[in-house]
């Protein structure tokens, strides 16, 4: 059978999901896939569009790359719109004049923003909020603007208002309905939401119908309202809902609904048996689904249907509607809406809880028998979302007094949390990635035994993160069920976790491994506990790591203050703070490398690595380096490595702030800090982010108003994009947060756990971390800062110390009883420098010599 020509019109989130699903199927070779996008780029994350304003980076929103499509044989037509379909001939024509045939056609044309028919809506600086291009235009206009108005107080409108505010404009929301988020939230919730949003400095104008937009007096525009009032603004953003993009379908003769939308059946097929429609352009049962999760569901069902048709497996999946429940944080306010939020089901009963001082509003809607949950609204505190959603989705029987689900638990006798055991196998735990309880159990059967493992394996809780608490409960419950007693002991010598040992050392004022072993451990220790304890001692007391009582704890690299290479020689990395180095120092490095015949390479951390030094050469080389003003770079330690920087505002035409200056200051502050694993920083001088700070443990990016701080990023084997932690910080606050963050990590992480993995396993995630660091919820702030201050005060260059101690220097010799060197260390030349000889070369050279 020849390949099926599948053409996907529209390369948004849903169109991409469809292609991804086809590519994942066993029959992927049966398909020749082509996709068209009228936008100039491949699929990106429209849901998190407003994050573009936080980092100004379109690439970070990308869901895929052109290279991915090319590698998988998908033909992509970017910036080309399909303008005609000939259903008879099974042919498409595009704006650029392409004509191509198809066997199966998938319409994923999405929706377009509805712009109310108001006179003047086409004036300058009136925008919609849909594509990256829209945002770029808004950003440009915002430069000369003071006030921005968003028309529409729905979910997207409030997101847009945040974006307007983040751009430094005075923001207003104008809503036609009498409350914000009218679809998802009831009157009580809407009122609270409004007051919370007003508190944040955003003007909210409800029950306002705009009659026309005219030239303003103080601003560019004046919006005139039906009630006679008016509002002046420089910029207007329409976010008043979406309409299905069904023009192409309509003109080609496919059946569309009376109010728009391409009609589809349960398999997402349109009125033509070879044409599917999925996502926001599709009309199922007279409903349009304006969320991404149902779109993804349709993509999977449509792709599955096509695969089934070829495989004849008889497995038919159906789209049966979608749950439109949502939970999100709008400008820092938790908002959640589940099912029948307005209680419109006949006979429904409502329970409401309103805590005015704490600004929390909760409502549940239950059926007439008080047995099943129908819907809920949560404002100000959405922690119960996961539990309530499971009650609703799985029809779980409510407790005798349903109001206990939303009333605060003040005594210890009210345990209302839903036992995860009660959930059926099919219960969807993560709606972003469609992960069920059964999927999670299967992952655990296959060997996952921590929340972190399960997240990596199933992607659960890696979307919006709303299900993280529920996931943790489930994983813990499953572990218990399996009789797995998870052993977190450091090793056979210490029945404690690293975190516990840290506390034992700190609280017990323990200064040596021997003392710790005597008080809390057994045996002689091993290569697991020794370096871990060595690191903890260093983090707590910051003593010289080669001190007699510590030297036996140091791992391969620390014990000789160098990085051991495969042939037993070492590499040397002096500190070059922020990557800034003088010509004189560069010359010293060159001279030293030349004198000792070292191989030199520039590292990824903006320093220079000198390879091939033998033990006895280390002190000689370091003597010259220290004399020239260099310090150890701690490249050998689990400690702060480098603070990478771009050249910043000092030289760069685009630089916003002095990234090099800050990088040097930060590197000097934290140099020598021993930690559970290595720590890397970067500082970028503007949002172009040339220092790549968003893949570092701590990333700092200059903004017009200060510094943005990112945390827990990682490059390497398992890259992790850093999370935005705080924005527009002044330097003192930034340093305070970094002090606290690093010490909190050092206290609580496992051994050899980078901040990225630590964070993925941190219960409570980003909200919790912010609470601890920014709001000081544990009351630890000053303690953490004091611990950091003590570390900074006791800094020493370990090489300078070592050079002054003849006893220590004795160890830097290959033989204790001879000045001979290791005859197995043999170099050959390559590209004008040395490298270790391989086995064959070695035996040839040795044969020649003898």
């Amino acid at each position, binding site marked *: 059978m020849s390949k099926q020509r599948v053409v996907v019109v529209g390369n948004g989130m849903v169109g991409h999901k469809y292609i991804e699903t086809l590519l994942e199927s066993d029959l992927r070779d049966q398909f020749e896939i082509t996709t068209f996008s009228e936008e100039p780029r491949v699929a990106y994350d429209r849901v998190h569009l407003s994050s573009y304003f936080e980092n100004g980076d379109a690439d970070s929103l990308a869901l895929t790359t052109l290279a991915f499509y090319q590698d998988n044989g998908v033909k992509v037509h970017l910036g080309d719109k399909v303008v005609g379909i000939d259903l008879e001939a099974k042919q498409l024509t595009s704006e650029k004049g392409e004509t191509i045939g198809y066997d199966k056609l998938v319409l994923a044309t999405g929706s377009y923003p509805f712009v109310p028919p108001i006179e003047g809506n086409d004036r300058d600086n009136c925008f919609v909020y849909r594509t990256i291009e829209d945002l770029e235009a808004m950003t440009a206009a915002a430069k000369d603007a003071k006030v921005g108005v968003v028309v529409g107080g729905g979910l997207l409108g409030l997101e847009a208002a945040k974006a307007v505010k983040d751009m430094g404009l005075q923001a207003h929301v104008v809503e036609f309905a009498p409350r914000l988020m009218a679809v998802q939230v009831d009157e009580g919730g809407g009122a609270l939401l409004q007051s919370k949003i007003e508190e944040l400095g955003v003007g909210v104008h409800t029950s306002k119908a705009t009659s026309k937009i005219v030239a303003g007096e103080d601003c560019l525009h004046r919006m005139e309202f039906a009630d006679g009032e008016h509002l002046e603004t420089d910029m207007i953003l329409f976010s008043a809902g979406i309409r299905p993009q069904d023009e192409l379908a309509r003109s080609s003769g496919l059946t569309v609904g009376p109010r728009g939308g391409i009609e589809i059946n349960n398999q997402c097929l349109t009125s033509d048996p070879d044409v599917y429609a999925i996502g926001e352009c599709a009309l199922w049962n007279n409903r349009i689904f304006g969320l991404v999760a149902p779109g993804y569901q349709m993509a999977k069902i449509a792709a599955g249907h096509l695969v089934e048709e070829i495989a004849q497996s008889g497995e038919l999946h159906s789209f049966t509607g979608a749950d439109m429940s949502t939970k999100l944080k709008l400008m820092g306010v938790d908002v959640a809406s589940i099912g029948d939020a307005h209680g419109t089901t006949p006979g429904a009963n409502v329970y409401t809880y309103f805590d005015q001082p704490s600004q929390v509003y909760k409502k549940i809607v239950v059926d007439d028998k008080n047995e099943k949950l129908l819907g809920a609204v949560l404002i100000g505190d959405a922690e119960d979302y996961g539990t309530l959603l499971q009650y609703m989705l799985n029809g779980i029987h409510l407790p005798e007094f349903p109001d206990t689900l939303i009333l605060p638990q003040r005594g210890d006798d009210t345990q209302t949390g839903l036992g995860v055991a009660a959930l059926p196998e099919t219960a969807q735990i993560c709606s972003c990635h469609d992960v069920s309880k059964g999927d999670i159990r299967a992952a655990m059967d296959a060997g996952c035994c921590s929340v972190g493992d399960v997240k990596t394996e199933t992607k659960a809780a890696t979307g919006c993160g709303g299900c993280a608490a529920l996931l943790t409960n489930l994983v813990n419950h499953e572990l218990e069920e399996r009789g797995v007693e998870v052993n977190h002991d450091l090793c*056979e*010598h210490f029945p404690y976790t690293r975190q516990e040992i840290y506390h034992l050392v700190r609280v017990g004022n323990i200064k040596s491994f*021997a003392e710790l072993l005597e008080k809390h451990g057994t*045996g*002689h*220790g*091993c*290569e697991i506990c*020794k*370096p871990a304890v060595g690191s903890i001692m260093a983090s707590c007391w910051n003593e010289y790591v080669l001190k*007699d009582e510590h*030297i*036996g*704890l*140091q*791992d*391969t690299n620390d*014990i*000789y203050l160098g990085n*051991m290479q*495969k*042939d*037993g020689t070492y590499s040397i990395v002096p500190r070059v703070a922020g990557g800034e180095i003088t010509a004189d120092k560069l010359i010293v490095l060159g001279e030293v490398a030349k004198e000792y015949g070292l191989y030199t390479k520039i590292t990824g951390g903006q320093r220079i690595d000198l390879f091939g030094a033998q033990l006895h050469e280390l002190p000689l080389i370091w003597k010259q380096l220290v004399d020239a003003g260099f310090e150890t770079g701690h490249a050998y330690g689990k400690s702060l490595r480098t603070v990478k920087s771009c050249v910043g505002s000092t030289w760069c035409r685009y630089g916003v702030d002095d990234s090099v200056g800050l990088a040097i200051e930060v590197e000097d502050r934290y140099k020598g800090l021993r930690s559970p694993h290595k720590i890397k920083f970067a500082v970028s001088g503007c949002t172009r982010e040339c220092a790549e700070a968003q893949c570092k443990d701590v990333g700092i990016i200059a903004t017009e108003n200060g510094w943005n701080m990112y945390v827990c990023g990682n490059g390497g084997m398992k890259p992790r994009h850093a999370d935005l932690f705080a924005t527009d910080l002044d330097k003192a606050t930034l340093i305070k947060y970094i002090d606290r963050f690093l010490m909190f990590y050092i206290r609580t992480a496992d051994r050899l756990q980078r901040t990225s993995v630590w964070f993925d396993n941190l219960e409570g995630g980003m909200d919790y971390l912010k609470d601890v660091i920014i709001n000081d919820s544990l009351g630890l702030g000053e303690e953490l800062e004091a611990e950091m201050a003590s570390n900074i005060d006791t800094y020493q260059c370990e090489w300078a110390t070592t050079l002054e101690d003849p006893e220590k220097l*004795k*160890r830097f010799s*290959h*033989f*204790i*009883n*001879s000045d*001979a060197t*290791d005859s*197995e*260390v043999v170099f050959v030349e390559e590209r004008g420098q040395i490298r270790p000889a391989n*086995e064959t070369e070695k035996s040839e050279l040795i044969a020649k010599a003898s």
Partner: protein
Amino acid sequence: MTQATNWTPVCALTDIAPNTGVCALVNGQQVALFRLADSEAVYAIGNYDPAGKANVLSRGLIADLDGVLSVASPLYKQHYCLKSGNCQEDETLSVPTYEVRLNEGQIEVAA
């Protein structure tokens, strides 16, 4: 090795920091010596790591695994028993062991 043992003095016990190792050159062979803390026990094994293929074992960490004293190779962390020379992770690998004794504070090795 029962015939006339040829003892070579290499260094003083105190030349080795407790819980670490050093390498000695004894009759052309590289011998890794390890000193335990708080005792006069000294162990001697070959310095060449057959897994990592380099002369580095004296620079490894001393590890106690279920009561068996070993050195963890600094390259790829294989454990070699300080008494038998056997590699714990790969039974086809082992390193030679040497007799060692203390003579008036001096370490002597038979190799």
